[in-house]
């Protein structure tokens, strides 16, 4: 691999450091698989850690769904797992809040941010733009290990005697700031904050690397308008991360000072247990502003990679060029921009000035426009395509379906007047689980099934994949559709039990139904886990380009080595969506094929 040994220091060839940059063929196991600087290995590390977290997050939700579905049941059989959190056959109400908090935190940050972006940005950016590796392999490695440390801290906090953080994933003060308010705001909250600080460092290192790589290391010919939409999506996701995570850091830093150093940024005139606290002058609304300035871009950090993955897979499997390539980029740019100026729609009922509320409502509803452009383009791409129903394709179509279903209720929630009725109810829970939770998961599944052959050189089992898809797809709708009705009826979220309200008694059955569906959908994921692990070792061997796709990663060997291409990096001549081009011999023309070789299909303006 002599071509990879070139020093980047253009003007320092005599520098001693240049000699240290040599590629080592016989790397020690520890450096090859554990402290690896290879983007493909780091991607797999993120993926596997993310999958483990997803099962933990799902298990937590199954436990609280059992509580919600069968509030009268005795849960002694859970005692071997939960220990003293089950008291006399009843789930501890404060632990219930801990479960909800940790479920949200784990899913939003550890699975759908690190697990999704971390996996696919790392894996696909160098492969699809034609780079040997990330701009800085070392920072990339650090990014994973900060995430790993953060995971350890967050995981350990589940086993604290006082319970994990319990103030919700949004950790609103004063609840999160005062240990006397709830046991989870003691050591659990401290560990939550430490874990999130490490997570932010990891995320920033990753994002900085992704942006630098996309800007600087594209292969010749790969202009920004020839980039696959996946790369555009990861690029914008990383920009959102760089701009919003530091704000969360500031926000949490002030919370740390309030918790441990006696400041009053968020605390004012509070009585806890009959005792007046000394804190004067703080503002809990300030926290909400700072938190949601991250929090709203964060939901796009979760969903944008899904946009990219799904666009790519739909075009490949519909055997058609993506409809409106530039409109897709434009709508992603629009969504990214808007994501920074809509945060206060999470705060309509916080006592904010109603005039401000209507401004934020207006901006929020504008998001429907680029979102609709995307949905229209996906459907138009599918329209009259030669659709190949592979498993990743099914998950991509499922993504579009869930994104529409969840997006429609966003228009209702974005109205500040309608929000007065449905805020903080299960309607909100149903909305965001469909539009960002399940959708992003579907994007992730689609990506795993689609790029598994490139990751492990083998195919995942198709039959198990279909079973997994249908159980998950039907399961998700069975969980979240009824939840809308529960929400409209006024059920508040985060409540341990509603049995004391006669009004809500009639909804016991629907809750049981939701819980049953949720647990079945969670159990269906074990099919995926089995398929994933089994296929790594025993799956059918993959060919170099199993989906007959155009992008550069399929020009590498079946299992790309360190440096990705054994020879020189391919040069790019065309956009990535030349599927079913009239006159072409095959129904796809990869990006590295020059126009001079495809005379029969060239359009008048197609010149090298």
């Amino acid at each position: 691999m002599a071509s990879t040994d070139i020093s980047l220091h253009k003007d320092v060839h005599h520098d001693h450091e240049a000699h240290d940059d040599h590629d080592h063929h016989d790397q020690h196991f520890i450096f090859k698989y554990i402290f690896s600087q290879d983007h493909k290995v780091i991607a797999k590390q993120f993926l596997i850690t993310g999958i483990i977290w997803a099962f933990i997050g799902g298990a937590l939700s199954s436990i609280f769904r059992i509580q919600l579905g069968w509030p009268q049941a005795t849960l002694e059989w859970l005692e071997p797992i939960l220990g003293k959190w089950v008291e006399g056959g009843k789930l501890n109400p404060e632990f219930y809040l801990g479960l909800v908090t940790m479920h949200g935190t784990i899913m939003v940050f550890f699975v759908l941010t690190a697990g999704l972006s971390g996996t696919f940005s790392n894996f696909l950016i160098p492969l699809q733009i034609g780079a040997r590796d990330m701009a800085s392999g070392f920072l990339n490695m650090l990014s994973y290990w900060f995430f790993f440390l953060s995971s350890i801290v967050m995981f350990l906090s589940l086993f604290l005697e006082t319970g994990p953080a319990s103030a919700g994933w949004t950790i609103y003060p004063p609840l999160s700031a005062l240990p006397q308010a709830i046991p989870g705001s003691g050591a659990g909250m401290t560990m939550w904050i430490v874990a999130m600080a490490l997570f932010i460092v990891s995320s920033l290192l990753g994002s900085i690397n992704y942006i630098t790589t996309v800007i600087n290391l594209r292969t010749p010919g790969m202009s920004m308008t020839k980039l696959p939409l996946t790369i555009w999506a990861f690029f914008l996701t990383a920009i959102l991360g760089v701009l919003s995570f530091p704000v969360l850091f500031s926000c949490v830093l002030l919370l740390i000072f309030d918790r441990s150093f006696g400041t009053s940024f968020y605390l004012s005139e509070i009585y806890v247990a009959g005792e007046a606290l000394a804190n004067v002058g703080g503002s809990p609304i300030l926290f909400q502003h700072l938190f949601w300035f991250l929090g709203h871009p964060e939901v796009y950090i979760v969903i944008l990679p899904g946009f990219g993955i799904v666009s790519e897979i739909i075009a490949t499997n519909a055997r058609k060029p993506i409809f409106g390539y530039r409109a897709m980029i434009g709508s992603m740019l629009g969504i990214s921009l808007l994501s920074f100026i809509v945060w206060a729609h999470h705060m309509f009922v916080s006592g904010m000035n109603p005039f401000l509320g209507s401004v934020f409502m207006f901006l929020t509803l504008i998001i429907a426009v680029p979102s609709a452009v995307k949905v229209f383009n996906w459907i138009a791409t599918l329209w009259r395509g030669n659709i190949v129903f592979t498993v990743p394709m099914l998950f991509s179509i499922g993504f579009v379906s869930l994104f529409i279903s969840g997006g429609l209720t966003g228009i209702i929630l974005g109205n500040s007047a309608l929000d007065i009725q449905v805020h903080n109810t299960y309607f909100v829970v149903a909305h965001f689980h469909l539009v960002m939770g399940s959708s992003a998961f579907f994007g992730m599944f689609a990506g795993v099934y689609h790029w598994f052959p490139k990751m492990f050189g083998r195919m995942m089992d198709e039959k198990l994949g279909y079973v997994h898809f249908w159980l998950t797809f039907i399961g998700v709708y069975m969980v979240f559709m009824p939840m809308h009705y529960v929400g409209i009826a006024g059920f508040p979220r985060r409540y341990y039990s509603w049995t004391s309200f006669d009004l809500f008694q009639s909804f016991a059955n629907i809750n049981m139904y939701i819980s049953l569906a949720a647990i079945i959908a969670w159990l269906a994921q074990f099919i995926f886990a089995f398929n994933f692990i089994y296929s790594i070792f025993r799956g059918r061997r993959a060919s170099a380009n199993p989906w007959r796709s155009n992008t550069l990663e399929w020009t590498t060997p079946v299992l790309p080595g360190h440096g990705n291409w054994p020879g020189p990096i391919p040069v790019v001549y065309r956009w990535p969506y030349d599927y079913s081009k009239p006159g072409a011999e095959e129904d796809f023309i990869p990006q590295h094929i020059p126009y001079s070789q495809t005379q029969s299909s060239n359009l008048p303006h197609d010149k090298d």
Partner: protein
Amino acid sequence: MVGAIVQKQTSSGVHPLKFALWLIIISIIMMFAAFTSAYIVRKEEGNWLEFDLPNNLVINTGLLVLSSVFMQLAYFAAKKDNLNQLKIYLVLTLALGTAFLIGQWEAWGDLVNRKVFFGGSDANPSGSFLYVLTGVHGFHLITGLIFILIVLISGFRFKVHSKNLLRIELCTIYWHFLGGLWVYLYLFLTLNH
């Protein structure tokens, strides 16, 4: 760097590390944007303790601006392969940066003497914010000082010269940014007091 792969060409013509540094600077800017906008929002809500800024902040600002000048001179010296001057200017930058930090520490002492506290029952967010802004900036300044120290050490090893400017270039950008950030914070605090 085991197994690190480097590519010769970049599609933007900018060194990737320099690009990454700018992104780091952007993320630091976002942090301070959050703090200063939180400051404004919180101030508008009232219950805000008014007090005079410590007098020596002006002197500190002067010290930091001067250190930026020396940093730039050090960069020019490296460009002209004037290695002795380079070391002198870097030491001066380091000294002035350290003096700035000591000055900030004394400003904190001055605040405590006037009973403007960071935390505790007598603290008001207006004081706490001042400590946070100066403290977080101070923390970043320490990272800048460490960076200068690294450049200085490599200067003594003849690794900083006209054909190996990347390191000192990055250091200069970062140090100017930290200086500029402080000037912004100082103006922000002066205008809001």
